[in-house]
């Protein structure tokens, strides 16, 4: 327990390592051998507000037991100037051939060019079956301005705590989850660092095991429209993400 807390503290303080692992379409559970996993990916895309952007994200997962794990991550999107740090604790409940993961995540997102700092807590359940995965949860999001106007010195005059936001995600792969390669589709109202209310992301995901050292390559082509339901989806952001996962 002490080692667990120490690791959490070190990773939080270092801020070194958003969360590629939460969008990864492959198997998340501890393989019984490799206690450490690292994910790293590059991203390139276009956004309506900021135009072209590129960036990176990385996360480190430590499996303490077959059930408990902790993940810490970071991401930086340059030109968009959004930087994030997060820590996530996970408890896995095996159920027949499937796994139910209970994730609790704390993230800090710095929207530098708009002088906004956002802190969020997300609690969600992620159900991983052979072909299909589902995520359902809730986010608590608070943000505040860093450049509070002089006449509004009070923190509360420049901060806002949103009412809880539901988190939903659904993915499906064309091969069984433990296949050496896989291709899938997903829809979800979140991504590696943000949680939207009803704006639905969707896209294609892919992963494959490389022949060297059990390294996996993964990729996502993500479409992020603005608006949903009665507000017809409109082009907002498109991105391509390519990364590697290594376990040891």
């Amino acid at each position, binding site marked *: 327990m002490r080692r667990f807390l120490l690791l959490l503290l070190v990773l939080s303080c270092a801020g070194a390592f958003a969360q590629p692992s939460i969008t990864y379409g492959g198997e998340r559970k501890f393989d019984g051998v490799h206690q450490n996993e690292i994910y790293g990916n590059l991203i390139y895309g276009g*956004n*309506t*507000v*900021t135009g072209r952007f590129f960036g990176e994200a990385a996360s480190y997962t430590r499996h303490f037991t077959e059930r408990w794990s902790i993940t810490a991550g970071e991401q930086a999107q340059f030109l*968009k100037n*959004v930087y994030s740090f997060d820590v996530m604790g996970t408890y896995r409940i095996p159920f027949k051939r499937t796994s139910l993961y209970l994730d609790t995540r704390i993230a800090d*997102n710095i*929207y530098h060019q*708009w*002088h*906004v700092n*956002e802190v969020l807590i997300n609690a969600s359940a992620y159900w991983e*079956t*052979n*072909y*299909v995965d589902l995520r359902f949860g809730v986010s608590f999001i608070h*943000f505040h*301005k860093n450049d*509070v*106007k002089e*006449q*509004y010195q009070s923190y509360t*005059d*420049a901060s*806002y705590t*949103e*009412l*809880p*936001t539901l988190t939903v995600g*659904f993915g*499906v792969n*064309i091969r*069984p989850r433990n296949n050496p390669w896989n291709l899938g*589709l997903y*829809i979800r109202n979140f991504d590696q660092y*943000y949680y*939207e*209310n*009803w*704006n*639905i992301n*969707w896209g294609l995901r892919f992963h494959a095991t490389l022949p060297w050292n059990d390294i996996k390559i993964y990729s996502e082509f993500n*479409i*992020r*429209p*603005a*608006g*949903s*339901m*009665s*507000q*017809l*989806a*409109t*082009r*907002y*952001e498109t991105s391509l993400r390519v990364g590697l996962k290594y376990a040891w």
Partner: protein
Amino acid sequence: MNRRILLTSLMMSAILLASCEKLSEKINPAGILMAGTAVEDRVAMSYKYFLSHYDEKVWLVAEGDYTFLVGADSHVTTDPRRMDEMLAIGLKDDDLFYAHLGDIADTKAEYYITLDSLLQAAKYRYVLQNYVLWDEYHYVEKGTEEEEFPTLYTYEEIVYPFFPVVGNHDIMRNGWALWSNIFHSSFYEIDVIVIQDDGNFAFDHLIFLDSASGTLGTTQIRLIEEGVLNGKYDDGTSIYRNTFVFSHTNIFKPQFNEFASTFPREETFYLLDKFEEWNVTCVFCGHVHTWDERNFNGVHYLTLDSMCEANNPNPGDYLVRINVKQDGDVSWSPVHLSTAGPTKK
């Protein structure tokens, strides 16, 4: 078994994806895959209209204090009584203008015909109250008829001061064609010239954004960044005393179970920052059908409840009136709509 799960999952995802675009609207998978760009077309058309009609640009003139009336989400169908009541209240209380925050009618041609007839009738009453006939074709403002050379207006030249923004329901089923046929532009600005008692002038600024798609889109953001709405002197000081922004989509979330999408994260923060840069006094939003009032870093935000009879059948305070004093002070008060909607069964 696995194959069955896979097929079921694919069907579920297809249904969910289709429902994201509103099932009755665009089932076309290409439309879902690529997402629409309608906001770009609307803003491009609106800005072109603005440039080609610059000579007809509306300037509102207020002498001393003035007020204006704001309503939202009227969703006019076959029964336009609430809308009619809003316009009657505005005329009776002599508001300088009336603003509407979008979703003015549910998109059917017959509803827009109803709305257009209503606005034409309201304009006629407005002209009767504020103008007198000068000759067979021209009107003059009341109080100027004794002048030797008063400004003459044809009936068509008289601007009925009803200014809407476009809402997401206004653009469904090719609704933009109906909406733009009446209102022409979804992205525009109006200046209010305030003549103060001491003879000095002040300027207030009204900005109407096209946020019907939950994003301003690339074109609108580019125009904003080019400074078309900035209103600043060369030395960077603002021309305007008060700036009021009107947007359909809301910024803040007034309720947990709101079944309406808002701006994406980056655009939310971009807008909050832009409103501060513009030194906005108050931002008016609709869309979510719930009342909300808050201050955020010096900008006041009012999100209005729906004035539609079907959404809120009981009479209530669904409108707000903004009181602008000639010294620039701004306050607001609720305005009651007494028309009752259909009884819910």
